[in-house]
């Protein structure tokens, strides 16, 4: 009676099944490599981005710098776009001789008419230095790299005596200037392109959203919060290189487990920031390789000293003592080291750094007494802002929050944790009501001064979520800005951070070491100075 209708339904189902498809694996399109990055970019132009691994990687692959750090010895530099350079006797004048015949990328609407010359270099740096420059992304955004590196204060002028020579003049001698120039973010862009765009009145926005550089990969497409796609640049001045990556995609995936799934299902071939507890698993897996990174990622707890409750130092000390930071360190990073009060470790070797014994040892009893002494009304409800993006990962964060909540409940403090992105935190800071903030700070061990000045800075524009600043810190920050010697800067940085801890405005919660993971068939991913990943010489091997 209804065999016919059943048949019809079966046909429909079969059609649906065909439509959804259950075929074999599609071939990876054209030597494509996908990098699942833990943080997202708002523009494809690295010089107006937060300094993190993703922006450093995009800068490293799309652009070139005048000079490069020698991978073999961290304090010497190799020529890149500059063939050679000289420093004047007083250390105030740097003269660079440029490489000739370096071609810029071309795009669908712009074809460069000339190779790179000195005017491009001058333009690239003036654009960063000038505060009245039109290359701001948004009026509330800061030009991140030049401000953090201190270049704006250091650089007096950039001039081009002839087409292949550039002269940098400084306000004061600074030996770290070469380091600034070799930074991934000190990129050279095309002046001709900017002029071309200006004739159409599309200069700042198009320049930032469709960048033109000289690097091994050229810009192809960008979608905010989703991806950045680069194509191999066939006329790269260093030659084709040994890599076979033709299309490079930065897949912005801020949720950690999704990065992992993408890596496991080969949707991504490279990812960064795996969960610490997964590293063991990943190292054991046949499909993946783990590369540890020599880089320090610190989770700091900032006390908002302007909040009415946190103004009370007893409460702050009670909180510090109530947190078992050794346990946190163990849980978050599976590190057996003991907790430390020092934000910058004594030795600059990163992992396994010697750690000074803590001034505020863990003691719930003591914390309870302090709470009684503080005469705060219990239970105390505190609002915590937590940094959601940047270098952290979901997994670690939620664990951290749970531990904090658990431990502070012991001394009668209830936490209300609100997670938001770093930029949201920054935007809400002025009018926000928060008591504590959990932030992720990322220090380059050789020169942590940039991040130090951002996190502990005294001007309102910084990311100082404790709002704490006394005269000594102000002086130290000023010294840090002007100090030419790299080693001394590390010392000053350490002083600033220990002062912040002493004043109980900040406390380090845990220190992690970030890593990146690749599929087993990916070889030759290189690290750059600012811990970006360069895929120029990356080889995608065959599956087996």
């Amino acid at each position, binding site marked *: 009676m209804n065999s016919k209708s059943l048949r019809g339904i079966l046909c429909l189902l079969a059609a649906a099944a065909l439509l959804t498809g259950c075929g074999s694996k599609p071939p990876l399109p054209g030597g494509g490599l996908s990098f699942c990055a833990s943080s997202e970019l708002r523009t494809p132009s690295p010089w107006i981005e937060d300094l993190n691994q993703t922006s450093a990687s995009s800068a490293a692959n799309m652009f070139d710098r005048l000079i490069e750090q020698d991978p073999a010895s961290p304090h010497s530099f190799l020529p890149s776009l500059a063939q050679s350079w000289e420093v004047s006797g007083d250390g105030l004048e740097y003269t660079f001789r440029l490489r000739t015949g370096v071609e810029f990328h071309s795009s669908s609407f712009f074809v460069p008419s000339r190779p790179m010359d000195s005017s491009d270099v001058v333009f690239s740096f003036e654009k960063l230095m000038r505060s009245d420059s039109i290359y701001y992304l948004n009026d509330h955004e800061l030009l991140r790299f030049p401000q953090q590196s201190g270049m704006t204060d250091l650089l007096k002028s950039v001039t081009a005596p002839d087409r292949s020579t550039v002269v940098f003049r400084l306000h004061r001698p600074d030996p770290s200037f070469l380091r600034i120039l070799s930074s991934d973010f000190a990129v050279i862009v095309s002046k001709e392109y900017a002029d071309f765009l200006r004739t159409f009145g599309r200069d700042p926005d198009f320049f930032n959203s469709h960048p033109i550089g000289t690097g091994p990969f050229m810009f192809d497409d960008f979608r905010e919060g989703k991806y950045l796609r680069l194509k191999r640049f066939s006329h790269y001045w260093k030659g084709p290189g040994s890599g076979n990556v033709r299309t490079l995609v930065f897949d912005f995936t801020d949720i950690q*487990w999704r990065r992992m799934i993408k890596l496991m299902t080969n949707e991504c071939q490279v990812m960064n920031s795996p*969960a610490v507890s997964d590293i063991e698993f990943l190292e054991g897996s046949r499909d993946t390789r783990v590369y540890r990174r020599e880089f320090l990622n610190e989770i700091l707890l900032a006390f908002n000293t302007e909040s009415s409750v946190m103004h009370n130092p007893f409460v702050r000390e009670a909180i510090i003592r109530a947190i078992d930071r050794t346990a946190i360190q163990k849980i978050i990073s599976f590190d057996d080291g003991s907790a430390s009060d020092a934000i910058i470790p004594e030795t600059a070797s990163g992992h396994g750094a010697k750690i000074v014994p803590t001034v505020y040892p863990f003691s719930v009893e003591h914390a309870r007494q302090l709470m009684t002494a503080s005469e705060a009304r219990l239970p105390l409800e505190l609002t915590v802002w937590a940094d959601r993006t940047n270098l952290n990962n979901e997994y670690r964060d939620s664990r951290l929050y749970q531990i904090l909540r658990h431990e502070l409940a012991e001394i009668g403090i209830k936490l209300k944790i609100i997670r938001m992105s770093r930029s949201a935190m920054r935007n809400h800071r002025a009018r926000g009501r928060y008591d504590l903030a959990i932030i992720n700070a990322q220090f380059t061990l050789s020169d942590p001064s940039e991040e130090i000045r951002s996190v502990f800075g005294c001007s309102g524009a910084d990311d100082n979520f404790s709002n704490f600043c006394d005269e000594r810190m102000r002086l130290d920050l000023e010294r840090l800005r002007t100090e030419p010697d790299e080693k001394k800067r590390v010392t000053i940085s350490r002083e600033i951070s220990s002062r912040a801890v002493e004043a109980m405005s900040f406390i380090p919660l845990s220190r992690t070491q970030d890593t990146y993971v690749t599929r087993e068939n990916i070889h030759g991913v290189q690290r750059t100075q600012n811990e970006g990943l360069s895929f120029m010489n990356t080889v995608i091997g065959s599956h087996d």
Partner: protein
Amino acid sequence: MTSGTIRHWASCLWGTFRGRPLFLTGLIGLICYIIIIAAGTLFMGLDPYRQNISEYFVPPSLSFSFETGFNRFIMGTDDLGRDIFARVVFGARNTLFAAVFAAAAAAAVGIAAGFAAAISGNPVLNILRRTMLFLAATPSVLIAVLMTAIVDPSLRHVAEAVALSLLPGFISSSYRIAADELRKKYVIALRTDGAGKMYITRIILRNTAYLFAGMTARAFSTAIIDIASICFLGLGAHHATPELGLMISEGMAFIYRGNYWCIIFPGIAIVSAVLIVNIVGSALKTAIRKGVFENASS
């Protein structure tokens, strides 16, 4: 209430549950569920917060050895070494309490408003009822999201959002039921006999109670699903709170490594709760209908 009526209701209930194997299964499931939750939260000394780093990702097992006795973690542990069984028990309690609150609040307010509109015939209430007909499809997730804009997310607010989303449905259907009933001959007869509004309300309520029992049970199961979904999306309970949806959301972070037990047990807890509520709800509906309209002896 005399002993006769108690016996009558007891026999109706028992008769219904005994009548169909499905109902009986549901009843047994319900009893087991309640016992596990009550025993787990009150007597077994389980602690859903206790962390033990050295025993993370212990797989679930029922193994037994003479030295150590039964495996301590029958459902395994999560990444912080917390007992998943304890978290499931407390999570089920939290989720179900929130769902009970949402369904009960929506039912009480909704039925009262719907009846008031139908029986009083007040035009203002009638307009309200009409608007509710439109709002009946407002998704709870949308209300929960709106609430995050005003207040900080918490399980209580999620329950309130779910109650709000269930309310219009209750108002419009209780209005419809009451209006239908008012048109029936026996009510007209009562009216002509001069019965008061309160009396008529009571009679109608008694005669439609089985419908409302069914509706409330359905609302309860919807509330369980919605609360779990909202918490899964991260708009609900705080991170450490044991909550079934949130546990699954956190367990997502380990599925690629095969630690499925972080997800499977909360998942089973949700699905079985919903199924049990649905089954027992329809059994109750049948039983109440039997109790109101049939004689106990028959």
